[in-house]
């Protein structure tokens, strides 16, 4: 797939999220240079600032960094779970990338979220409704995208569960009765239910044991190859990043400190924090 200036899928510029009441110096006085994201003047907290990047169709982008570096904030802002403080983001399939999706109304945002994006959270409780069956959870996403045919919904749900290796027999059970790995796979089924061009994965393997981790990662890689979904993978785990991603962004204190090809960053890290990160890899 050729990458030129025009065929981006998602373009993010100067995405910023600040808690509290910042003043004009807040952004300048925080970040990796100061090793802090708390503004000394106003005590406001800069979760992330000046995040800009392009994502191309079918590409997998990794965001890596220590806890509190703002990597989850970035995807939550892009998935409308949080309100931005500043910045803009354009999504090609939505109005041909002409409208900043972060400034749209809630109704429009819901449309984008349901039709053009999927999200897999670290904790399945965030992505699934545990009062509904796993089939119902997938149905929710399909219904939100305007499918009101029970037969079709159930057909699609069983396809998805098949694909993610959840026994279809358990479609009408609640995810509360599932193991952690299975819950995560139901969540992935739900996220890709509408064939979205863009998928966010927020620490999907954290908290799973190693063999289940490997299975979930396998599944994600397979889906990526079969469906060609563009993904943003957030992780603090470099082996996950190495396995899944083409390009990587390294974040610290709410800023991007380095970005480039994943192999390059892992082989030859330039920023001292990236070097630290790579050298601490077991």
């Amino acid at each position: 797939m050729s990458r030129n200036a025009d065929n981006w899928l998602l373009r993010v510029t100067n995405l910023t999220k600040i808690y509290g009441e910042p003043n004009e110096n807040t952004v300048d006085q925080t970040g990796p240079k100061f090793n802090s994201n708390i503004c000394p003047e106003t005590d406001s907290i800069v979760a992330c600032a000046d995040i800009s990047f392009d994502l191309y169709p079918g590409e997998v982008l990794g965001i890596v960094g220590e806890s509190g570096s703002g990597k989850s904030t970035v995807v939550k802002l892009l998935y409308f779970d949080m309100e931005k403080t500043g910045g803009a983001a354009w999504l090609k399939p939505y109005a041909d990338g002409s409208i900043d999706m972060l400034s749209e109304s809630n109704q429009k945002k819901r449309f984008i979220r349901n039709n053009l994006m999927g999200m897999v959270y670290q904790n399945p409780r965030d992505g699934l409704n545990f009062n509904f069956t796993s089939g119902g959870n997938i149905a929710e996403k399909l219904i939100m995208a305007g499918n009101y045919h029970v037969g079709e919904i159930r057909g699609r749900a069983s396809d998805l569960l098949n694909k993610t290796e959840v026994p279809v027999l358990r479609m009408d059970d609640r995810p509360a009765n599932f193991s952690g790995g299975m819950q995560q796979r139901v969540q992935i089924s739900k996220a890709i239910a509408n064939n979205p061009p863009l998928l966010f994965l927020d620490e999907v393997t954290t908290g799973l044991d190693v063999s289940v981790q490997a299975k979930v990662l396998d599944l994600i890689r397979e889906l990526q190859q079969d469906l060609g979904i563009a993904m943003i993978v957030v992780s603090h785990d470099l082996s996950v990043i190495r396995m899944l991603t083409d390009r990587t962004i390294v974040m610290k204190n709410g800023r991007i400190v380095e970005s480039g090809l994943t192999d390059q960053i892992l082989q030859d890290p330039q920023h001292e924090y990236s070097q630290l990160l790579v050298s601490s890899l077991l």
Partner: protein
Amino acid sequence: MVENIKYANKYNFAFIDEATKKEIRRKLLKAVAIPGYQVPYSSPEMPIARGWGTGGLHVTLAIIGREDIFKIIDQGSDASVNACNLREFVHQMTNCQTTYDTSEATLIQTRHRITEEELTENQIFVYQVPQPEPLRSVERYEYRTRQMHGEADYAKMWVSLYESYVRSGDIMLGAGYPVKVNKRYIMAPSPIPRWDVPNLNQSKALHLFGAGREKRLYAVPPYTTVEALEFEDVKFHTEDFKGTECYKTGYKKAFLDELYFDDGSKHFIINDSNFLDKLVEKESPKQHENKYIKQLQS
């Protein structure tokens, strides 16, 4: 001696003071202007406890005039305790004429039924509503349900219908089946049986809903589209009375009650008492028309 005119009557006409009536009427106007939208209102104190028909009573007393002919039913019956007491109360407070005859009444208050006889443009139909929020079963927080209504985000409601179908093979909602009003708001039609739901659609009468305990008013204006929620392949249907008929009249096309006699035998009888009386008297009251009744064999 100066005669005390101001306090000669113990109560204002229709019990509620004029300022409060005005407030309720204004909220009703808003409700009519936005069909299916729940309007918060004051829900003033009544001589009965909230949740025992105060919402319906507020609406009735706020809009009743001296010329009105008042009818009240409870579960289709003119004679049940709730109906009798409220009829007596309204009559005492307004001195309005009361009636059992559906076609004669201009203002009908109801609990849990729509009359079997068709309503006309000259009639106002008032419901006592226990739970005005159709989304309460899927979302417990009020601020969230308001947001969901505001943004027409009804996926959770649909999923609960889907789940019900998956679990039981049918949408297991007997009374209070959720409807979409004027293609916008999802509304709880108070717990009327499914039998009555199609009769709200394009009804000639004005339907006003009052939930006293929950402090909400809403309305379905005349000739408004009201659709029961249904999937493309799992359809809404009314109660099935196949193989049964009213034991007094032999009538099959009305909502029937199940009765057990002392000898243990089971019988069915028309639930709407005035409709039953008219059939027994060999009158032929004009019934609501909808496709579900049409499908039935007489």
